[in-house]
């Protein structure tokens, strides 16, 4: 008579469940430590000495950011360039920049951005993705959004739009007025600029690079 197989034994499967769950959990925790170290926010001296961080420090708002193809990684990465004025200044101290980012990040939550927009691709799909919104050509010197607001810089145009969104409709679907103050708008733009500098492994692909043809246009 054959012996009872271990494969039909509940204890065997119970132990398997415990071991595999434990193993997967330990691996996840170990990877979490590694990832946490890599995604911690950089600081001002990293930026000054050219150390690349996946999430740069808040003073990244003092610099020009572009999104360029990295030959080795085969996708686009944010590149932090020379100094660039942000609301007329390029000398925000670490504390000032951190305070602006703090205000902006808080604002992004309390104004519920994520339930219409996506941030880093997560959120709702009722409005454009904001991951690289700072780099959107529409807000640039020749862009439609900047000219619509009558402002002469990207950050001022964005801040103006955020404070009075329903005054600047781009489509039948509009952004509602969320009671965003001038200071909050400045913080939110700093938050957007900072987010555009995060290394998102090439997401979104080809952002702002394609003047593609739709319906023959």
């Amino acid at each position: 008579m054959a012996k009872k197989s271990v494969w039909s034994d509940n204890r065997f499967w119970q132990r398997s469940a415990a071991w595999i769950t434990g193993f997967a959990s330990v691996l996840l925790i170990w990877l979490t430590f590694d990832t946490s170290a890599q995604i911690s926010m950089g600081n001002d001296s990293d930026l000054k000495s050219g150390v690349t961080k996946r999430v740069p420090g808040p003073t990244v708002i003092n610099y020009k950011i572009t999104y360029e193809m990295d030959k080795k990684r085969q996708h686009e990465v944010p590149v932090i360039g020379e100094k660039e004025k942000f609301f007329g200044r390029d000398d925000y101290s670490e504390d000032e920049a951190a305070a602006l980012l703090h205000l902006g990040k808080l604002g992004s939550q309390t104004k519920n951005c994520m339930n219409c927009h996506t941030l880093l691709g997560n959120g709702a799909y009722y409005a454009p993705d904001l991951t690289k919104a700072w780099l959107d050509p529409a807000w640039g010197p020749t862009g439609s959004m900047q000219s619509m607001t009558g402002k002469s810089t990207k950050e001022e145009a964005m801040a103006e739009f955020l404070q009075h969104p329903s005054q600047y409709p781009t489509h039948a679907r509009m952004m509602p007025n969320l009671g965003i103050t001038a200071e909050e708008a400045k913080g939110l733009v700093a938050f957007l600029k900072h987010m555009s500098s995060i290394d998102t492994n090439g997401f979104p692909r080809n952002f702002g690079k394609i003047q593609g043809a739709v319906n023959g246009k």
Partner: protein
Amino acid sequence: MANSYLTSESKKLATWYFTVAATLFGAQLLFGLVAAIQYVIPGFLFEILDFSVARMLHINALVVWMVFAMFGSVYWLLPDETGIETVGIELGKLLFWIFTAAVTVVVLVYIFIQVGAADETSIWFIHEGREYIEAPRWADLGITVVALGFVANLFMTGMKGNRSGIVTVLMADMIAFAGLYLTGMFYTDNITVDQFWWWWVIHLWVEATWEVFVGSIAAYGLITMIGAHRKVVEMWLWIEVTMLFGSGILGMGHHYFWIGTPEYWWEIGALFSALEPLPLVAMFIHVLYDWGKMQGEESAKGQDVSVITNKPAFTWFVLNAFGNFLGAGIWGFFHTLPQVNLYTHGTQFTSAHGHLAFFGAYATILIGMMYIAVQGKNGIKVMNNTTSTIFATSMITGGVLGMTVALTVAGYVDVLVTRAQMGATWAGYFDGQSGAWFAQGMDWRLVMGVVTFTGFFFLIKDLLSIGKATHHVR
């Protein structure tokens, strides 16, 4: 609770939980309908109840009704599994009222206050603005207390009474479920770190602990509704736990492709999330196999009657087996590989998957549990379908399937035009949104949403009246 056959306090408490869950399910559908209308008629309730508010209510009501129904399900099955009355049932009842009151306040604040200034006060008292777990911090703390009380009751009952395999799995699963909520409660300025931990709650709930919960409930249902053999069912349950946690825990990697986290998550996420549909296949086979086996044993005795003692509930359990595999498994696998996800991440594809997965994996089986409670409360031995059962089941299922297909079509436009062709900019986004197929997809989604909502009224009518029908075996 007049005219109730229930003698167990735990089961009575379960019916309270189910009642609130069904109500919140209605709220979920109502606000989903508002949001669906806004896609078609953008001016609808503009600056009165904007899309962001409607959508927040839609997805929060979803999460909360499911948590209520899950708590209810556990309180329902505990006396059957352990053979004793739930320990700490008075505490359980008190926590139920606290939970219900807290949810009511949170919903009213969402509707009437909506947004606050960019400060900590708003985070504490209005909402946290983080998808699915928007609840303000005071409510976070309250929910933690309620969840801990629930877990304590489960543990005390499991340790005092007969600790079956199902109860053992639930004990391990529910403590993880409650504990994971803590990882989504803190604030940080670093959005990458923010989303990293946010996924610990969302992913490890819906792709790990909630799925294991579903496995346990399915096991309980098979034993009680078709008389499946406990040893076989529990062995399958342990296999499912092995496969679900084995793939689901590291499957988390598929949320870490693009949020600023390192590139090695591409490989880890791709591999383990590609394995995630396997346990769902196993669960599907398990339910249908057991059903066939038990019916076959009955037929072999020359008996030409169904082995199912609760037709409506068992229908929902079978829909769960199929819907979980289709919605979570197939629709999830569609876009889980990084090469595809680069273009599909954050499009209507995600939304299509979300609708069918939450419905197929969770709504179905929890509605099934509500029918089991109705059966028990009315002292029915064999419960049959009514006309309303048929209408409710087919309209809700057909409606959600229809919405999923419509959103998938819209998703293709989103992916191909906005993402692949136009590079995801503001202008590119609206090029996609104004596409004819996109617009048609949103029209059909609304139609199918109305079908679902109509089905919901049949469901409520049925849950309230099926117990009084005369064609059951009592």
